[in-house]
């Protein structure tokens, strides 16, 4: 059941990325109120997340330790979301990882993160800054739907200016079409 709700939320988030208004119907309207449900209850990846009673407590009392971010066995050590050419849609394979980071922020309300958008080298510099921003914004939108707070996440873009791989081939381009999740202090 819980998984089912999560799936619905993800669908809602993606729908939200694509069209702004329009569908007054089901998924977005229903998704938003239930967004608090996983937060209150569980979080498969953030075991022991805050109860409704302590939601307003400052960060330090969060129950997911910051060390989890660096534990290579923890999904939180994964930071990169990859995209198809000219696309900002988040692929299913990255959703569990994005959810884990959202839950971490939810459990640590004082924690902050930056989402850094990147593009491959094709396209002009300034338009790629905007494209990278759109990718970072898409990841943020999903994280907020999954429990992170708007104020915890800043989205920025490097466009094509800071390629992780310098090659001029599809493998390099695929590596560079990316949003990196960077937690404050890292």
């Amino acid at each position, binding site marked *: 059941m819980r998984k089912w709700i999560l799936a619905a939320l993800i669908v809602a988030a993606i729908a939200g990325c694509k069209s702004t208004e329009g569908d007054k119907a089901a998924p977005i309207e229903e998704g938003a109120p239930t967004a608090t449900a996983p937060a209150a209850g569980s979080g498969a990846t953030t075991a022991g997340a805050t109860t409704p009673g302590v939601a307003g407590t400052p960060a330090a009392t969060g129950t997911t330790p910051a060390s989890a971010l660096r534990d290579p066995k923890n999904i939180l050590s994964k930071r990169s979301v990859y995209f198809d050419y000219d696309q900002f849609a988040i692929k299913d394979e990255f959703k569990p990882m994005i959810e884990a980071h959202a839950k971490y922020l939810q459990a640590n309300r004082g924690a902050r993160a930056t989402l850094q958008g990147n593009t491959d080298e094709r396209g*002009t510099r*300034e338009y790629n800054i*905007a494209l990278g921003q759109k990718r970072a914004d898409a990841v943020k939108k999903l994280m907020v739907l999954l429990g992170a707070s708007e104020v915890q996440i800043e*989205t*920025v873009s490097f466009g094509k200016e*800071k390629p992780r791989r310098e090659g001029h081939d599809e493998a390099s381009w695929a590596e560079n079409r990316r949003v990196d999740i960077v937690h404050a202090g890292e």
Partner: protein
Amino acid sequence: MRRLIVVVLAFAFLAATPARAQLTIEIVGGAGTTVPIAIVPFGNESSWPLGITGLVGADLARSGLFKPVDDAGIVPRPTRAEDVRFGDFRARGVDAVVVGSMRPLGEARVEVRFALLDAVKQTQLAAMTYVVTPAQFRATAHKIADVIYEKLTGDVGVFSTRIAYITKQGTRFELVVADADGGNPQTIVGSNEPLLSPSWSPDGTRLAYVSLENRKPVIYVQSLATGARQVLANFRGSNSAPAWSPDGRRLAVTLTKDGGSQLFLINADGTGLQRLLTSPGIDTEASFTPDGQALLFTSDRGGTPQIYRIAIATGAVERMTFEGGYNVSPRATPDGKGFVFVRRDGGRFMIAIQDHATRQVQILTPGPLDESPSIAPNSKLIIYAAQQGARGILAGVSSDGRVKQRLVSPAADVREPAWGPLPR
């Protein structure tokens, strides 16, 4: 003359270091017709190691519109208009003749005189006298080339203008300002993080640019006279794509502080932020029209990135490009007749120009990765960034597509050219 001194003084106070890599410009394709011109070495010119006529000839040749003709064999060499025997020059196919002289005045000052003659009509077209120091010879040569260019083509010369560009060498980025011929390069910012989008203030005294040194795009404005800079826009999110208004009082910028990449206006001192538009998608890469009343910009509101125009007073938005699925980076031409932009077609990124009156598009460059077009103040020449092998280079193309230049740097990757205004 006063203008020349002001220009040179500005350079003298430029708090900057000489850049290592000077650009040299090669012509790789010429206009169909060129004016054969004889530039006779000035009388007494050999008294100074750095002369003037060599630079004048190089300027004119690089424009692609002139063919310097050797004057060898004409004895004695004329140095005054009245000494020119037109028959000597017509026999060599010369249409225009430049003669002149240089005379020391003491205190390291030199009087430079020149005259431009029409060898066909046998008339004098221009004559000027300058009093300069040898340090001003380069600037004087560019001035003379401007006079010749203007008299013979009817267009304003841009040899006295400057260009800004970004170099990347290893992990080092530099914002460089140089003369339009690539000479006299000065690094005004160096950084280990990327720099991009330099934009000249209309009076040529300041540059706005984007730096990633704070792990996000932040817009700075820097004075060329003092090297001092201030943050123009450092809001939450990304701050990019600065473009000066023609009156120099404000800039259009792209900010994401309220979500999405959106256009704002901001005063040149960072005050008075004002949102220009609210759109669901990307709005960026603003460029003021020369009258300051409108902006061209890139938006993906229609599904693909296309160029739009907004009237600032009314907010009315009009789509400008319709062919192709990727038209970006509009730059209004200073003559108000149209705009240059980048079109992607079949995976190739090419520089194109669109005429407002006819909506005709002319593709000016072959690609495959051409971008960042910037137009000379006379609207005749476009400088842009291109890829040669794995290296970034700058290239030039005339706005009719006929003259093609390549600006070669010995070492660094060069990109993001911005053509400065006419000197005031």
